[in-house]
Every structure is written in C-alpha cells, then in structure tokens.
C-alpha cells in the first residue's frame, strides 16, 4: 500500500523590537541571565502588561504579506501550563479571535507551484530558557527571553513532503526578513519550527494519528526530521502497529526522532481571555497604512528580476532569497548592466565564498562597486575570466580593488598583437613534431598550442586572440 504524509507546521518568529511585548525590558540577546527582567516579565503580582505598538504593527505586516484576513477586534488569551520557563504559569497568547486568519503562501518545488494555507498568525510572548544540569537533579532558569514578542504562524495540514515543508519555511523566512521584522536565525532560535506529522493510505481522506516534532533548528534538520518521522510511521503501520500521539524530539547527531518524556501532564491549556489586557482594535486606517508600507516581497521581486533583467527563474530565485543579496545584485547591475554575467558571478564565485545562502551578503568584503569594476575589466578583455577568478579571491581576502591587485601582481591580460604573434611563433618553432602532426590533420593539437602560449604568459594571454593568431600562423606553414 502507498502512504502519503500530511504535515502542518507551527512557526515561531521573534520580532525585532527593541523592548519586550508587554514591558520595557530590552530584547537584546546574550546578556547575563535574568539581567533583562522586571516585575512584569517576572510575573510578580499586581503588575499590568501593556502591549508594544511595534509588535502589533509587525504582526499586521506579516499577516498582510501572507494574504491573511485581519480581525479588527481581537484579544489575548492565557495559555495555562506549569513549566518554569514562564514565571506566571501562563503564556500570554491568542486563542479565540486571533489578530489574523485564513492566509496562504505560494511555494515552488520540483513538483511545481503549490499554495499552502495558513490557519492563523497570532501574537504571543516568548518563554525563558532552561538549562538542565548534567549531574544534579536541577534546572537553571534564565528569564531574559521571557516576554520577547513572537508571532506564531500556523499552517493548514496542506504540506505533503519534507521538500515542501522546506520550501514553505524558506519562503516564510524570506518574507519575514524582507519585512525587517525578524532576523530569521534558526540556529539562535529567533525562527523556530515545530511540525505535526501523520501518514495515511493514499486516497484516504481521514487523517492518521499525528506526532508533534520539535528541536529541528535548521532547514536541513526540518527536512531530515520529517523524512525520518514519516518513514517511521509508515513502517509502524505496515507492521500492523499503532502510532502513539506524542511529542518527539529530533536528534541532529543521529538524524532520528525519539519520544520526549516530560514531567508535564497532558496538554490541557485551559485558554481563557486574559483579564489583564483589554481587547485589541486594529483600525482599518492602520491596516491601510501598513499595507502601503509593505516592501516588494520575494515572489514579486523574483518575477521582476526575470522580466526586467532577463535572467532565468532559477537565478532570480537564488538572488531574491535574501533582500540584501537581491539589493547587491541590483546595485552591481546598475553599474555594470550585463545581468546574466553578474548573476553568474554572484551565484558561483560569490556564493562559494559566502558558503551558501545562510551566510549573509552583509559580511561580504567586496562591494557592488568593486564587483562591477572587476566584471568590466573582464568584459573589456583586460583580464581573462580565469585570472578574474584569482583576482576575485584576492579581493575577497583583502578587500582591495581589482585594479590594485592586477597591477600588484602584473596580471593584466596581454592583448598586444605583436607580442602575442612573437610568442605564438616561438611556441610553434619549439614544437616541430606537433606542428607536423597538426598539419597532417590532428587539429585537436590546437589546444596544446594554446596551452603552451598560456604557460609562457602565465595565463595572461588574451585567449580569443591567441586562437586567432595560432590559426593564422599555422596556415602559413
């Protein structure tokens, strides 16, 4: 029997506000434990939370970017649970009447375009951090992160494969980063993903029993964790066994998932409206203002790159994966208007040095101006493409201009007709037997002669001219 997977994702994104969601403590990461706390985020009696305007506006922006309906009237709820990462014993979240519902995101996979529905995007507060002692039966609590504003994005169970899950996550992350409302750092946990996974026989409508997957802190781990869990569930069903509804943790060291045994009892959050917070009104005028402030989003930008610059959709997808990279590309093209050549250089040489998409272009030591200048030298024939790559590496390492490096190392391309003719003649004289064979019809030896000229000139000879000159010189013999 064939099985299909049914996956729904819950994404938590930390909002890039300066202060926390309901108090004025800083959200800065990496401070001494509990140094960014106050009576409100410590959950002391008698305090009142007051919502951060920016957190509200950021949430509305994301909701609009994901085609959600904004609920003009919405409210906060208490999600009750006992776990020392939140000192109040509840998390301020939204349950009934969230700020936005019914959105969608379009993704592209090897199977083509698909639309993934969003159930809701709502506001909530982050919890603190626990460190469990390896040897003693104690845990240590740091409440610095407590109260940092989060949005939770809940997808419909529309995802059918780990690949789709990855594409969906990358798209959401790109939108968040484009909007400038989340830094999207999965390793540091400012962008986190939990998954609900079940399998069912193909064609079946009813959903199977699901498990919840946690602890997948990179795109690759999400894909690997999901694949493992899908295979595990299918094997269980094939063996006639039952799937237990539970929370499982992904272990990146082994690539497997294991049941999370927690002392917490069954999830029963007993949500109710938070009496400390009045309902929220998102006025239509605010929604319209925020809508007008939305930047060009990744999908639109990608389409424009294809139409405006005539580059392939694949290139456009890679270049628009981050807003900064897209900006870098556009700036370079403005100075050196050969988009495909720019795109090739960014996607091969530059990405190689930046080691893939997860390292930001903002750490790139080569400015758009410097890259454009280098490409212009290649285009004018001052240096060969091969030498340009050496120069590029040097630029990346030192931050120097291409012209300075070329001058320093004497790398200017030899395009002097007289000089090249002389070198070509010398090469032919030094290799009489190869010349003879060439004249007898072994024209493949052309490569050998070109190689010899390059060797003599240390790769600096203009390759097009070398070919032309060698051809003419050989004809004379």
């Amino acid at each position, binding site marked *: 029997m064939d099985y299909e997977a049914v996956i729904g994702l819950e994404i938590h994104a930390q909002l890039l506000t300066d202060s926390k969601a309901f108090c004025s403590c800083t959200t800065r990461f990496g401070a001494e*434990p509990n140094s960014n706390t*106050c009576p409100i985020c410590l959950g002391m009696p008698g305090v009142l939370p007051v919502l*951060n305007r920016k957190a509200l506006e950021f949430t509305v922006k994301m909701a609009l970017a994901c085609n959600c309906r904004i609920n003009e009237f919405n409210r906060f709820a208490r999600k009750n649970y006992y776990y020392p990462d939140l000192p109040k014993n509840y998390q301020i979240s939204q349950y009934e009447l969230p700020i936005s519902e019914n959105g969608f995101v379009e993704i592209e996979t090897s199977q083509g375009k698909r639309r993934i529905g969003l159930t809701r995007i709502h506001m909530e507060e982050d919890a603190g951090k626990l460190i*469990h002692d390896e040897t003693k039966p*104690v*845990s240590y*609590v740091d409440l610095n992160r407590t109260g940092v504003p989060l949005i939770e994005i809940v997808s419909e169970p529309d995802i059918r494969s780990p690949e789709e899950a990855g594409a969906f996550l990358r798209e959401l992350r790109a939108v968040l980063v484009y909007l400038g409302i989340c830094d999207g750092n999965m390793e540091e946990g400012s962008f986190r993903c939990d998954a609900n996974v079940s399998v069912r026989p193909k064609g079946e409508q009813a959903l199977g029993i699901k498990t919840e997957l946690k602890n997948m802190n990179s795109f690759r781990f999400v894909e690997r964790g999901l694949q493992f869990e899908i295979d595990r569930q299918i094997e269980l069903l094939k063996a006639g066994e039952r799937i237990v509804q539970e929370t499982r943790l992904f272990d990146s060291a082994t690539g497997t998932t294991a049941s999370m*045994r927690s002392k917490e009892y069954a999830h029963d959050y007993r949500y109710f409206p938070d009496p400390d917070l009045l*309902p929220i009104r998102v006025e239509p005028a605010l929604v319209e203002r925020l809508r007008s402030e939305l930047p060009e989003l990744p999908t639109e930008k990608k389409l424009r790159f294809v139409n405006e610059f005539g580059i392939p959709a694949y290139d456009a997808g890679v270049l628009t994966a981050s807003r900064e990279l897209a900006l870098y590309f556009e700036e370079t093209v403005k100075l050196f208007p050969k988009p495909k050549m720019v795109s090739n250089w960014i996607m091969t040489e530059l990405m190689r040095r930046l080691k893939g998409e997860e390292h930001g272009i903002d750490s790139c030591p080569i400015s758009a101006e410097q890259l454009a200048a280098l490409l212009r030298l290649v285009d004018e024939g001052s240096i060969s493409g091969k030498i340009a790559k050496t120069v590029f590496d040097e630029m990346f390492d030192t931050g120097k201009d291409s012209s300075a490096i070329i001058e320093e190392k004497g790398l200017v391309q030899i395009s002097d007709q007289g000089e090249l003719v002389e070198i070509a003649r010398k090469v032919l004289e030094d290799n009489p037997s190869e010349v003879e064979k060439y004249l007898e019809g072994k024209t493949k030896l052309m490569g050998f002669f070109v190689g010899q000229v390059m060797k003599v000139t240390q790769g600096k000879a203009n390759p097009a001219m070398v070919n032309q000159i060698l051809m003419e010189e050989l004809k004379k013999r």
Partner: protein
Amino acid sequence: MKITTEQVEYVALLGRLALTSEEKKKYSAQLDDILKYMDMLAEVPTDDVEPMAGPVKLFTPLREDKVEPSLSVEDALRNAPAVAGSSFRVPKVIE
C-alpha cells in the same frame, strides 16, 4: 450532576490543588451550579451575533517600543527560593 468527581480531581491536578474528599464534594456542587447557570446562557439564540472581544467598548492601550532599565539581577532573584549564580534554580523538569 453535570460534573463528575473525576473531572473535579483532574481540574484540581491541573491547578496544582490538593483537595480533601469534603472539598471535592463541596466544589463539585459549586461547579455544578456554575455549569447549570452557563446552560441558561446557551439557550439564548446567538446565530446572528458577532463574537464579542470584550464586554466594554474600550481597547488596549499601546506603548512605544522604548527600552527602560530592568531590575538588577540581585533584585530580580531576591524572591527566589533557590538561586545558582545569576539563574533561578528549580527541580529538574525533564527526565
């Protein structure tokens, strides 16, 4: 009765309340009254009524995104029954 003793025990467990058997009986009766009262509300036809976000026509005020000084770590930890360094110390919460 609209509520069983087991349900009262479950709610007490979730609320971390240790109830004596007399208390369980007493609260069962009280909760039963509350639920019966709620049933009266359920009789009101609400099909055409928009869900209400709150009972008063007031909405939550907003504050500007401005950082103010936090408590000192010493003050933050002052009420804690147990401390380790700058952290609260609690019984281990995972196995």
